[in-house]
């Protein structure tokens, strides 16, 4: 036990707090579940699979989660809140709406490309994981809905757009990403940025403006990466 240890922590390295270890373990378990679920589907995954994948003891699993379902909900919350955090960090301060959509989308795609298993968990498996997960999925979707809905204020026909437009746009974006995840084309996810931006801006700004904006964005990105 740590208290009985004669070894002092190395200078400059604080002993790892219990909370830190617990948080770290939870993330490992969550990642284990996501990896297993994307290989065989959530329903077929057992706690034994997760334990093995995460490289932890079965007891450790139960110290953190009461059941597979509880672990799934934690995975979903962890992934959704990380993704949203990055979208807000990238886009929250931008006043110009099309630029804001583009920055937010870029951050979201980057997250999906970096965490394909977790992203799949949120975008697909959540719908198969019971009513509470579906409820949470719906709530997180609303965060994206409000980002897009701001576009009605800058659209020349904002007042006439169908009520369900934002839901349909987000559903479309999720579907495209899901297809790429299924095909394991993770490395190509970020390339989708211009077309997804165009797809989402078109109903608000018209196809031509949306296309110009998306292309400008791609040019800016190319210039930035050439400079960097």
């Amino acid at each position: 036990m740590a208290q009985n240890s004669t070894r002092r922590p190395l200078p400059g390295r604080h002993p790892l707090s219990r909370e830190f270890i617990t948080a770290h373990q939870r993330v490992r378990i969550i990642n284990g579940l996501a990896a297993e679920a994307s290989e065989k589907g959530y329903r077929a995954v057992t706690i034994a699979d997760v334990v093995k994948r995460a490289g932890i003891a079965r007891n450790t699993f139960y110290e953190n989660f009461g059941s597979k379902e509880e672990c799934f909900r934690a995975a979903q919350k962890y992934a959704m809140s990380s993704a949203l955090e990055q979208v807000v960090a990238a886009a929250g301060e931008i006043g110009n709406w099309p630029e804001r959509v583009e920055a937010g989308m870029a951050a979201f795609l980057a997250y999906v490309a970096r965490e394909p298993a977790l992203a799949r968990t949120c975008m697909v498996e959540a719908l198969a994981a019971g009513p509470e997960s579906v409820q949470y999925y719906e709530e997180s979707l609303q965060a994206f809905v409000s980002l897009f809905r701001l576009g009605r204020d800058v659209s020349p026909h904002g007042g006439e757009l169908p009520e369900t437009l934002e839901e349909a746009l987000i559903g479309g974006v999720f579907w495209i990403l899901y297809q790429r995840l299924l095909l394991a084309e993770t490395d190509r996810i970020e390339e989708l940025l211009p077309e997804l931006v165009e797809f989402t801006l078109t109903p608000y700004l018209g196809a031509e403006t949306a296309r110009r904006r998306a292309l400008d964005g791609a040019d800016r990105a190319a210039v930035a990466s050439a400079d960097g």
Partner: protein
Amino acid sequence: MRDPVNPSVDSPEYPPELARLPPGRHGLPREFVSRNQRERLIAGLAEAVAENGYAGTTIAHITRHAAVSRRTFYEHFGSKDECFVAAYDSVMTELNRRVGDAFEQEQEWPQAIRAGLAAMLQFLAEEPHLARLSMVEALVAGPVVIERYDAAIQSLVPFFEAGRKGRSPEVLAGLSPTTEEALVGGIVSLISRRIFADRTAELQSLLPDLVEFALTPYLGSAEAAKVARAG
């Protein structure tokens, strides 16, 4: 004339189990009875799944709803999963047929899209059990069904791609290679989330929104809204 496959009732080849069918049902060929049982099992599965969810459904639930014996179940299907796949396929075949027929009856593409979407919403609204089976339970039924689910959704892409024909170069330049996939994904997401929430009865009221959403990239907002609100 003797038919070796469907022997007549008085022929010696006539299967004895069919001779025991109640009066008024004589003369049913074996293949018919068998197909009928299979259809009853498929319908029984849809009812059982609506009642218990896919995970909670047992073969006993299915045979009770279908009013057939357990042994009959195993003559047709090796497992619950196999029965589900058959049910899923038969729902999708029917849905595709109705969407395809509706689409082909219209001369103009925008109206054809409207008719196809209307047929899809009508089928799902009229058959809430089958709607749930194909759009919700399919997601938990394992990798085999998921693969079919994805293929079924992707099979809608060509209906939308047909809208590229005859568009101006400016419009075509604005359509990216994934436009149709994104449209289909958005439409299915709107529909399946209503089914998840047990709001299947509302599906048909989505028609104008879905039509406008689907047509906007090809026709622009104003024209798309006009088609959506007509009819």
